[in-house]
């Protein structure tokens, strides 16, 4: 479990990015961090694997204070996939890129090979095994970054803006992947502005504003609360808007909306 106890964080220039954050994330949870730019999402994410240490308060990973652990020690349990894929790719081949993290964590060469095969298959990157990561498309690079993290099987996976630069099909694949990871009992944290994408996943939502958590609830409750939406400048997904216009409970899928309309118009 990851626990935030009254965490505040102030950058060296004096900007207070996190203010008294209290949060618990369990394995199997699917949590979405939403909020405007500068609300503190990325700063919070960087506390999850100890890249940043709280100015005040404590962050515990499985009961251990991150201040007493190195980033590498925490990253073994919490894998972060950053927004910009280009900021981490450097190896000559795709398989070397995946092996980089595994070697850092001290896996045996035999284990590394098994894990590379697993990750390449999982993200449909087998045909690019010997190709340079720089020659992949934007979507493939993103998948490779996720493969790099999932290869060492962390217990929590954090995705920072996973849908940026992804086309419709790639987003659908991402949803399936997140579903699979959730079923495997992984704790997943997603920071995203893509409300339509998040709505399909139906996560628990943490709404942030000026470094504070202003709401923590299910996606349905958040999007039906106009006060929270106004405060955080969130726009509800289209299905929620449609259900509001039809004065009914929020549709979670297009199929639900279709069924509801069919019944009413007797088609």
């Amino acid at each position: 479990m990851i626990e935030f106890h009254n965490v505040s964080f102030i950058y060296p220039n004096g900007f207070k990015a996190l203010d008294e954050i209290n949060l618990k994330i369990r394995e199997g949870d699917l949590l979405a961090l939403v909020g405007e730019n500068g609300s503190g999402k990325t700063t919070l994410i960087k506390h999850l694997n100890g890249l940043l240490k709280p100015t005040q308060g404590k962050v515990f990973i499985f009961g251990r204070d991150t201040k007493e652990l190195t980033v590498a020690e925490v990253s073994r349990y919490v894998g972060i996939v950053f927004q910009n894929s280009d900021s981490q790719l450097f190896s000559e081949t795709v398989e070397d890129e995946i092996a980089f993290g595994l070697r850092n964590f001290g896996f045996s060469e035999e284990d590394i090979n098994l894990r590379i095969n697993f990750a390449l298959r999982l993200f449909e990157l087998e045909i690019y095994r010997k190709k340079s990561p720089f020659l992949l498309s934007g979507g493939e690079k993103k998948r490779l970054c996720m493969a790099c993290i999932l290869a060492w099987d962390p217990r929590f996976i954090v995705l920072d803006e996973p849908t940026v630069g992804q086309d419709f099909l790639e987003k659908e694949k991402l949803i399936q992947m997140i579903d699979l990871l959730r079923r495997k009992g992984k704790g997943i944290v997603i920071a995203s502005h893509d409300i339509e994408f998040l709505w399909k996943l139906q996560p628990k939502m943490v709404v942030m504003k000026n470094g504070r958590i202003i709401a923590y609830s299910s996606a349905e409750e958040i999007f039906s609360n106009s006060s929270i939406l106004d405060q955080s400048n969130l726009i509800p997904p289209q299905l929620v808007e449609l259900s509001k216009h039809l004065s009914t409970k929020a549709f979670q899928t297009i199929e639900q909306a279709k069924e509801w309309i069919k019944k009413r118009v007797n088609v």
Partner: protein
Amino acid sequence: MFRLPHSFIFSRQDSLIHRLDIRVKIIIFIEFLILSLILFNIRDQLTLLSFLGALIFLSKIERRILNSLAFITFLMAMIFILNLIISKEIIISLSYSLRFLLIILTSSSFFQTISPDELEYFLRLLRVPRYLRFAFISALRFVPLLMLDLIQITDSQRARGLELDKGNIFKRIKNRIPILIPLIISTINRSSQMAEALETRAFNSTKKDVLCLNLNFEKRDLIFLFIFFLPSLLTVGYYYIIYP
């Protein structure tokens, strides 16, 4: 390590020095630089240092300077030790260290208080060709972005278990490769994107050079010019009038 380059990047502040006319800033910079190079007496150097300190405080850049002071002190210590070994004179060695400090602080306060537009004007005064001026100013504008990239890339690789400060010196250098390669690639990508963006906006289609800078010499500029010209007046007065 990441803090030293910040000492040579323009710091957008609302200070008396930042508001000064560019020509006054250039004169003060050249004056301080010449004095830093010619003064060899520790008493004179300390006098100049006190003026420089006042300039730094008035510019509100003391925090950035203090952040980089650890590295500067290390270099000063190296200069002192090397000179002491060669000359075996404590005073001379100390004077060389102080000279280095004065040069660094003068350049640092100049670059932190002069905006890229003002710097271009300065280069124009020095008759630097247009293409070189543009390349230099663009590179300067890229530095803060590169610093952000560097932090982002370092975070990404540390999140993959990379431990930068582990092992001996050779291992530590090798550990920097996963940071340097993405940094070089992102810089090349960024500069090529910038070139394309400039071309689409018809950059360099006219030979006429436009200056987007207001030059206003006010009373305030004159006062500051006089105050910060005191070290030169004192030096000239002392060495050429009192003790010629």
